């Protein structure tokens, strides 16, 4: 029995370590008159990724993990994919490690981060239910989702979904019932950034604000 408890203690320790790393690049995205969503630092010079529905075309504010609250520009957004790229004036921000959503399998462990009901930087863990376009709850979407058994709540939107190694595999986007969350796969995010910003070019700060 002692062995089992050691394993659980180790598991808890590793989960806490994973959460600590992810939270270092987790931001809050606020827009006037609306609740807050979440976002992730993609590039150390202030490139932030979130959902398009979190910013709603307004000029958002971003609260960094160190507490700084900065006005953000919307660099690009795609309402169909529900993705938005924001820029803030900051350097040397901790970034998230980017993973590969194609490596997820049903049963793979995933952890979602956000600010559910305004609770700062909360984590919720679950497993991948399935991935693809044929998810029963979203027949109207002919596009790819990651479905995971996770408790998404308002405030998770735009936040990171990470794999067991703490690597970004998706963007928390919508609930599908009380215990199921749908995330935009990170492969879609890579395509979006490449199309709209010319890949992960470090001079994205020169990109004119998209309107």
């Amino acid at each position, binding site marked *: 029995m002692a062995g089992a408890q050691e394993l659980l203690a180790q598991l808890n320790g590793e989960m806490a370590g994973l959460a600590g790393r992810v939270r270092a690049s987790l931001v809050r995205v606020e827009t006037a008159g609306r609740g807050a969503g979440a976002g992730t630092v993609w590039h150390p010079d202030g490139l932030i990724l979130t959902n398009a529905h979190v910013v709603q075309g307004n000029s958002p504010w971003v609260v960094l993990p160190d507490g700084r609250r900065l006005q953000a520009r919307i660099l690009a957004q795609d309402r169909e994919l529900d993705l938005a790229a924001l820029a803030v004036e900051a350097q040397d921000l901790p970034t998230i490690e980017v993973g590969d959503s194609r490596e997820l*399998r*049903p*049963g793979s*462990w995933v952890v979602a981060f956000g600010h559910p009901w305004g609770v700062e930087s909360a984590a919720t863990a679950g497993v*991948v239910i*399935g991935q693809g376009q044929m998810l029963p709850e979203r027949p109207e979407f002919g596009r790819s989702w990651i*479905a995971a058994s996770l408790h998404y709540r308002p405030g998770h939107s735009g936040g990171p979904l990470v794999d067991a*190694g703490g690597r970004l595999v998706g963007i928390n986007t919508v609930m599908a019932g009380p215990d199921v969350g749908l995330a935009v796969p990170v492969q879609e995010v890579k395509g979006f950034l490449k199309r709209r910003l010319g890949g992960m070019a470090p001079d994205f700060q020169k990109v004119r604000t998209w309107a």
Partner: protein
Amino acid sequence: MGEMVQNLSSELAGIVESAGRWAVRVEGRRRMPATGIAWTHSGVIATASHVVERDEDLWIGLGAGERLAAQIIGRDPTTDLAALQVEGAELAAAEQAGGDGLAVGHLVLALGRPGKTVQATLGIVSALGEAWRTPSGGQVDQYLQTDVVMYPGFSGGPLVDMQGKVLGLNTSAMGGVSLALPTSTIQRVIQALQTHGRVRRGYLGVGLQPARLPKGVAEQLDQESGLLILSVESDSPAEQGGLTLGDTLLSLEGQPIRHMEDLMVLLAGDQVGKKASLQVLRGGKVQKLSVTVGERP
């Protein structure tokens, strides 16, 4: 750093991949397909009764993408189990867990295959208990409740332990909690369905209500209560056996009947067609009668 979580993750995915071979798609209703368990090599599929809404045009989808026609063997709505037969296919039959070491808190996976690929959710065993009876009278050998999320189309699919063995069949039809029917119950019901096409239940044809026995009778029989007959159906085994309104059932084949539950257990399927001796309280006196147990229509 993080090695254990990653190992856990890949072991979970590995179990899903291997046990996922036994999770088959069941196309038997107008809404989205559900899931079944490949139960025998010879093509018997166990699934939930409520997902098989029709008797014809049934199809089974396998992991390799094969789609096979299936016939219904039978269904038992009281346990929410149904058995199907696919022809001309050798299936990988589900490996069953022993179930001995299972404890509250153990991790479990629920698998489903409403589409082409296998899907999974993770949870823990929330409660384990004794044998129980469903509201419609089905006998289940063990109470097994989990907190796995039943994603649409997961009904009828396998509940799998961390050895990758099948613990039971997930059904979402009972009262909003995730309940699984243990493998022993699946085996017993499938055998009954194969033999009779249904799960037989004994039947008397009476309406009953528990009633406290008069003090003298209670002391004589060492039994506090019996079942008062409120109605007798015409031409029923009860009427033919001479039971009448106002009798109180006390025992069947020498076994005391204190509550409804006692009678339900005594009227098991193997009693159908047998002559059973009954003790009743009539006009303040204990009398003996004999009834031929019928089969519940």
